[in-house]
C-alpha cells in the first residue's frame, strides 16, 4: 500500500490547532517562560557563572576528562529516559496507526532531539573548556570544544534511537553510561580532594581539531545510518515513549511531581523479570516487604554507596552547602523504599490489609532509618578522614541523624498530590501559589528540624563530642516517635487523615 504523504496532514493539523489557539495567551506563555528562565539565571548567577565561566580555570586533566564523561553519560541516560524518539499522545493515537511514512513521522522528533542535544553538548563543551583552559582562552579552542560537545551529543542521540529498538544494545550502552558518570565523578572528586595541581591543562587547538574532524565523520556516517532506519522503530516502543512524555507534560502542567515518581517506579519494575519468593518472616510483614524491595534495588544501593563520596566534592566550598548535602543525601538514601508508603496512602489498601495507620507507618520507618543512618555515617566518616571536619566521632553523629532522614522521607512520601486549589498569597512580586510552595517544603521541614545539631556542627566545623551525638540522637529519635504518634491513628486505617 502506498504511504500517505505526512506533510499535508501535519500542515492541516497545525492549521486547525492555530484556528483554536489564542495568540495572546500563547505569547503570554512564551513571555512567562522567558521571564522565568531570566529570573532563575539571575538567582543562581554565582553558580551558573562558576560553572560556565569561572574567573580562573579550576581543573586539570582529570576535570578535562571527567566533565565530558559525566555530561555524556548523563545525556545518554536522559535521552534513554525520554525515548529519545517520542511523538505526542495524539500523534501516537492517530498517526502511528495511519498509513503515513514512519520515517517521516519520526524524522521531525529525531531532528528536534538532535538539535536540543547538540545545544546541550555545546554548552557542556564550553563549560569544560572554561574550567580547564588557561586565560585568555583562545576563541578557536572554545569553538572547537563546543563543536566537539555538539557532535558527541548528536552521536549519542543516534545511538539512543538505535538502542530504543534493541534492548541488548540499550542495556550495554546504559551500563557504559553509568560507568562513565561514575568514573568521571570519581576523577573530579579525586582532583578536588587530592594535592593542589596547576590548573589550565586543557587540550590544545591541534588535537581538538582532529577530534572534531573525527567526530564529524562519525556523525555523517552513523547518524545518517541511524536516521535511515528510523522506520524500523516498533510501535510499542513509540507508544511507551509517548505515554511517558505525556506523563512528564501532565506533571509539569499540573505541578504534580508524584506523577514522575510513579512513572519511574512503573518503568523500573516492568522492565525486569522477577521471581516470587516468601517474604522474610522475623520482622513485621510491611517491613519484610520493604526489605524485599531493597533486595531488588541493588543498583540503587550501589549508587547510594558511591554517593557517600559526593559531599567530599563540596568540601572546598561553602560549609553550609556541605551540611545541606549531608542531610539531603541521608534523606535520599532513606527514600529508597518509600514508594510503599505512597501505595499505603490509598485507603483501599490498608483496609484490605486491616492494618492501622500507625502500624503501617512504624513498620515503614525501619528500613529508611537504617538506610539514612548508614549513609550519613559513611558520608561523615569520609569527610572526617579527608580532613573536611575536625576530629570527633562523626560516624556516630551520622547514625544518630538517620531517624531525622527517615521521618523526612516518609513525610514527603505521604504528601500525595500538590494542592493547587489553595488560596494564593499576594506579594509585591505577584501572587504566590500556596499549594506548590507548601509542597516544596514538606519533608524537608522535618529534616531541618530534627537534623539541627548535624546541620550546625557541619556548617560551623565545630569540634564534635559524644554529648553532641547524644543530642542529635535524642532530637532525631524523639522527633521520629512524635511524628509517628501525632500523624497517625492507633485504631483507624486511613493514612491520609493526618499529615
Amino acid at each position, binding site marked *: 500500500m502506498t504511504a500517505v504523504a505526512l506533510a499535508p496532514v501535519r500542515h492541516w493539523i497545525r492549521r486547525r490547532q492555530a484556528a483554536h489557539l489564542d495568540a495572546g495567551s500563547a505569547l503570554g506563555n512564551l513571555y512567562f517562560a522567558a521571564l522565568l528562565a531570566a529570573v532563575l539565571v539571575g538567582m543562581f548567577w554565582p553558580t551558573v557563572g562558576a560553572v560556565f565561566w569561572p574567573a580562573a580555570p579550576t581543573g586539570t586533566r582529570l576535570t578535562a576528562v571527567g566533565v565530558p564523561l559525566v555530561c555524556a553519560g548523563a545525556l545518554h541516560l536522559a535521552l534513554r529516559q525520554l525515548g529519545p524518539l517520542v511523538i505526542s499522545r495524539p500523534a501516537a493515537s492517530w498517526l502511528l496507526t495511519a498509513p503515513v511514512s514512519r520515517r517521516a513521522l519520526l524524522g521531525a522528533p529525531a531532528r528536534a532531539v538532535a538539535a536540543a542535544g547538540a545545544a546541550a553538548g555545546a554548552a557542556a563543551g564550553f563549560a569544560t573548556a572554561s574550567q580547564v583552559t588557561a586565560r585568555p582562552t583562545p576563541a578557536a579552542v572554545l569553538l572547537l570544544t563546543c563543536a566537539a560537545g555538539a557532535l558527541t551529543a548528536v552521536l549519542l542521540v543516534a545511538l539512543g534511537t538505535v538502542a530504543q529498538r534493541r534492548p541488548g544494545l540499550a542495556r550495554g550502552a546504559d551500563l557504559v553510561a553509568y560507568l562513565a558518570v561514575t568514573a568521571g565523578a570519581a576523577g573530579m572528586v579525586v582532583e578536588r580532594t587530592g594535592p593542589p595541581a596547576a590548573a589550565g591543562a586543557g587540550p590544545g587547538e591541534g588535537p581538538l581539531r582532529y577530534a572534531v574532524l573525527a567526530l564529524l565523520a562519525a556523525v555523517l556516517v552513523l547518524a545518517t545510518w541511524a536516521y535511515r532506519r528510523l522506520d524500523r522503530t516498533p510501535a510499542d516502543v513509540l507508544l511507551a515513549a509517548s505515554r511517558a512524555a505525556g506523563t512528564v507534560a501532565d506533571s509539569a502542567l499540573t505541578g504534580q511531581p508524584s506523577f514522575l515518581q510513579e512513572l519511574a*517506579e*512503573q518503568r*523500573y*519494575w*516492568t522492565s525486569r*523479570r*522477577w*521471581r*516470587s*519468593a*516468601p*517474604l522474610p518472616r522475623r520482622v513485621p*510483614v*510491611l517491613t*519484610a*516487604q520493604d526489605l*524485599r*524491595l531493597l533486595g*531488588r*534495588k541493588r543498583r540503587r544501593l550501589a549508587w547510594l554507596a558511591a554517593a557517600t563520596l559526593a559531599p567530599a566534592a563540596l568540601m572546598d566550598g561553602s560549609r553550609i552547602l556541605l551540611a545541606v548535602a549531608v542531610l539531603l543525601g541521608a534523606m535520599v538514601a532513606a527514600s529508597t523504599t518509600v*514508594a*510503599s508508603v505512597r*501505595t499505603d496512602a*490509598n*485507603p*483501599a*489498601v*490498608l*483496609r*484490605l*490489609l*486491616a*492494618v*492501622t495507620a500507625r*502500624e503501617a507507618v512504624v513498620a515503614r520507618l525501619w528500613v529508611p532509618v537504617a538506610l539514612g543512618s548508614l549513609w550519613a555515617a559513611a558520608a561523615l566518616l569520609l569527610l572526617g578522614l579527608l580532613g573536611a571536619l575536625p576530629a570527633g566521632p562523626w560516624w556516630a553523629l551520622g547514625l544518630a541523624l538517620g531517624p531525622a532522614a527517615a521521618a523526612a522521607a516518609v513525610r514527603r512520601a505521604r504528601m500525595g498530590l500538590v494542592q493547587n486549589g489553595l488560596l494564593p498569597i499576594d506579594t509585591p512580586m505577584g501572587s504566590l501559589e500556596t499549594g506548590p510552595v507548601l509542597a516544596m517544603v514538606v519533608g524537608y521541614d522535618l529534616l531541618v528540624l530534627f537534623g539541627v545539631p548535624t546541620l550546625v556542627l557541619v556548617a560551623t566545623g565545630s569540634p564534635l563530642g559524644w554529648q553532641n551525638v547524644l543530642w542529635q540522637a535524642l532530637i532525631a529519635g524523639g522527633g521520629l516517635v512524635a511524628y509517628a504518634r501525632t500523624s497517625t491513628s492507633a*485504631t*483507624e*486505617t*486511613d493514612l491520609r*487523615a493526618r499529615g
Partner: protein
Amino acid sequence: MDQPAIEVRDLVVGYGSAPVLDGLSLEVPRGTATCVIGENGAGKSTLLRTVSGLQRPEAGSVLVLGREPGTDAEHWRQVVTTVEPPSWYPGLTAREHAELVTRAHGLDDGDAAAERAFELLGLAGHEDSMPTSLSSGQKQRLTLAMAFVRPSRVLILDEPEQRLDPDARSLVAGLLRDYVAGGGTVLLASHDEKFAAGTGALVTSVAELCGP
C-alpha cells in the same frame, strides 16, 4: 434470631439536590448472599459504598455485624470490599501481594493460601508478574484472589464479574457459593442476572429496596 450481618434502615444518600437512594432498607442475614441488580446510575455502587462506610448517608442507619461501618482496623479485619479498587505495591509480584495480605492477617501458611487462591482463580502462571503488567481481566481476578485469600465474615463486592470471561464468571460464582456455605455473608452488585443467579444469592434491585 441472630441479628442480620448487614442491616440498612431508611437510607437516604445523595450527591447533590436529588437523592440517589431514598428510603432504602435492606437486611442480609448471616450466612446468606444478596445481589443488587439494576441499570447504570440506579444507585448500586452508592449503596455498597455506604454499607462499606465509604459514603456518609444523609439519613438512615447502617449496621454491619452490629456496628456502624467505620475506618477502624477492627472493622476491616472482618469485612472485605472491592468497591474501591486497590493500588498495587511497586516491586511486589502478584503472588507476593497475596502473601502480604495473608501475613498481615496473621496466617502462617500465607504462601500456601496464596497458591490455592491463584489456582482457584486461574492465575497460575502469573505468580511472578507485576500486577500493573497484568491485563484488566487478570487484575480483576487478582483483586478477587486478595479478597478470598484473607479471613473475613462479610464480602461486599461491586460487579465482581466485570472484565471476566464466561468461565471465570462461573468460577467466581462458585467461590461465592462456597464462601456463603462456609458461614460468610455476601452483598454484591451486578449487571449480569445469570451470574447473580449462579452465586445462589437473593436477587433484588434498588427500586425494590426503596419500596413504594
